[in-house]
């Protein structure tokens, strides 16, 4: 069930995505975004993360401590956005620790597994929690992962879409395995980020 290893050649997606090796210097057009990944364990959070970041793996990248924190810079029109992605442990026993992670996050990606309805319920739990305790301006995305497993689908696209819309969220189904929609997910978040807010920008 592991996500297949990514090699640059195998990655679909837009040519607009670029890794920059010099993310240090930020100006008003260059944002640094804390993005938190929430979702039950086993839904493929880490696969999505690796797909996004390693899809255009830059060997000179200095990010090294581990794969649960990764950063990736994308260019969008005339600005660059550096996502700093915080993965969280999805097991139930660590639920109460989540606020430590999503505190101060500008974006949240809530992931469930389309073949597992329980993970969709858990996703709704996270959405509620973020609405209650998260940053009020937080940009949220609901992500149904494992879209390649259509034959085992148990959460309908319509149901999830309706839920997302009623909660003002962006919805997308991804496959970390085939990399479908992974880059689109992050680009869409980038577009939705409120601009010119001090909370988003370092400088």
């Amino acid at each position, binding site marked *: *069930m*592991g*996500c297949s290893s990514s090699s640059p050649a195998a990655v679909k997606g837009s040519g607009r995505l670029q890794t920059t090796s010099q*993310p*240090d*210097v930020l100006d008003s057009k260059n944002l640094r975004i804390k993005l938190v*990944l929430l979702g039950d*364990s*086993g839904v*493929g*959070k*880490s*696969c999505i*993360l*690796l797909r996004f970041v390693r899809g255009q793996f830059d060997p*000179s990248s*200095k*990010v*090294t*401590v*581990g*794969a*649960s*924190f990764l*950063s990736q810079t994308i260019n969008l029109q005339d600005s660059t956005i550096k996502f*700093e992605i*915080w*993965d*969280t*442990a*999805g*097991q139930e*026993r*660590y639920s*109460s*620790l989540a606020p*430590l*992670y999503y505190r101060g996050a500008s974006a949240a990606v809530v992931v469930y597994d389309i073949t597992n309805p329980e993970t969709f319920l858990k996703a709704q739990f996270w959405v509620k929690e973020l609405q209650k305790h998260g940053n009020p301006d937080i940009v949220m995305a609901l992500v149904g992962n494992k879209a390649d497993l259509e034959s085992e689908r148990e959460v309908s696209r319509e149901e999830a879409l309706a839920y997302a819309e009623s909660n003002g969220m962006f919805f997308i189904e991804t496959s970390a395995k085939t990399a479908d929609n992974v880059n689109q997910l992050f680009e869409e978040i980038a577009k939705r980020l409120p601009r010119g807010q001090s909370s988003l920008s370092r400088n």
Partner: protein
Amino acid sequence: MENVDMFNAATATLTFHDFLDRMRHPQAVDLVKSIKSFIVEFMSRTPDPDKDSESVQSFLTTTEGAFGAHPLFVNATDEELDSAGEGLEKYLMTKLFSRAFAPVSEEKEHDKKLSEKMAILQQFIRPEHLDIPPKFDESSLLFAQKELLKINTYKAPRDKLVCILNCCRVINNLLLNVSIGSKDNPPGADDFLPVLIYVVIKANPPQLNSNLLYINRYRHHSRLVSEAAYFYTNIVSAEHFIDNLEATSLSMDSSEFEKQMQSAIALLDANLSAQPSVTAKHSSVSEDNTLKSAEHDSPSASTQSVIKLEPGLTVHKEDQVESPVLPADSIASAVSAESVPPGSKASGSSDKDTMTVAKLEALGLPDVLEADKTGQLARDYPYLYASAGDLKVMDVEGLLADYKEIVLKYAALYKAVQGMGSATGNRRTSSPLLDISESSGILQTAAEFQNTKESASPDEKFVLGEDKAPAREEPSEVKTDGGVQDLFEGLNLLNNPTDRPHSPSLEHVTVQGHSPDHSTRETAGGQCEEVEPNYDVAATDVGASDITKH
């Protein structure tokens, strides 16, 4: 200002020396004056953690801002300015440490409770209780524990943070190795956090809560960001989890949990009452440990405090010695130091009697037998009962490193105990020497030398707590230090993370670059160690005369 670079050992050492160098410049007079007066003012205030943090944070912001506009930093690159900021933070917090670390009794109490809880939990907790997959080679987690246990060796918030990052790095590399060998998902937070929690419980680092609070309060907020912030958050999470841990937190039957808790408590109590003399001696060891670790880091800066800031240092020393919160009175200290060879336990005991190594060993033996009976020994030293056939090729590196470390530590201990047994009076002769140098500023070099030697091999502190052990002043012991340094040099050799980002080699895993300054010092070898302090003394002298002039 990507933090990753700043954690590079070589950069960090240069950074700090560069900072001291600049402060020695005549043009730095106004900066030095303002830094010194901030220190004096801070040290004289009654502790108030929130206010203290705020005032340090804003002083750092202001002063770093002033750097940018200062003639001293004309033409300085952003990078150099960042370095100067790091240097300032390290200098400042080394000076303020005694007053800023664990400043109020509630926090000390919290440390004690947490440590006691971990001492109990570590008796019976197994990876599967946190759903950590069994494919994990548990003994390799000892490396992660070792990194974390270094945290009390340092005073600067950055250095403490680096210990945490190193611990996380070791865990991540192990996870990566496991996942490469299987078809599983790449390791993410689902895999990482449970292992970190397990490692923290097993390591039971003294004063964990205080360390975390201290980092959050005094690491400049502009630098507690990104990756560092993420892994800092993880260890804070781990601490929360352990703090609130109850039967339902683990994959374990709750009646079984209660039973295990009770028997672990009983076992610890039994150990304490069965061996009162040894227990008392544990205390003295731990106290020395803490005393030493507090004084121990950044030779340059602490030397300066020896010579310059007498009041601060005096307060500090007394503080550390008297402080009731030291792991001394926590059961934990008896159990926590995984790497301490059994014989070393009572090494502080020669305070009273003439001790021989044999006597000490006999004293520790019942403990060891007890630990053997309960299986603790086998858990702490996974290879103890291994036969040659059990070993895998990948074990060899780790085993060899452990073996060398144990041999050197034991040899050092043996000599130290011999020295104590034959000449208890040496302790007396050494202290006045230090006192003189502290109060009058004469004999700087002697004090200097002493400091350097202590700081040169941070890992030893877990065994050789007695910073006053006369042996440490004798040349032969210096040699032993060198031996241990050499070992760690060996371990730290491959310290450039960009060379081989994901090496499967354990040896590499252990070090991988983010080592606090000391590794550079070790790598640089003995000669460098004698040169550096002098360099710092020079810096100190100028700084001193600056201060007195103004």
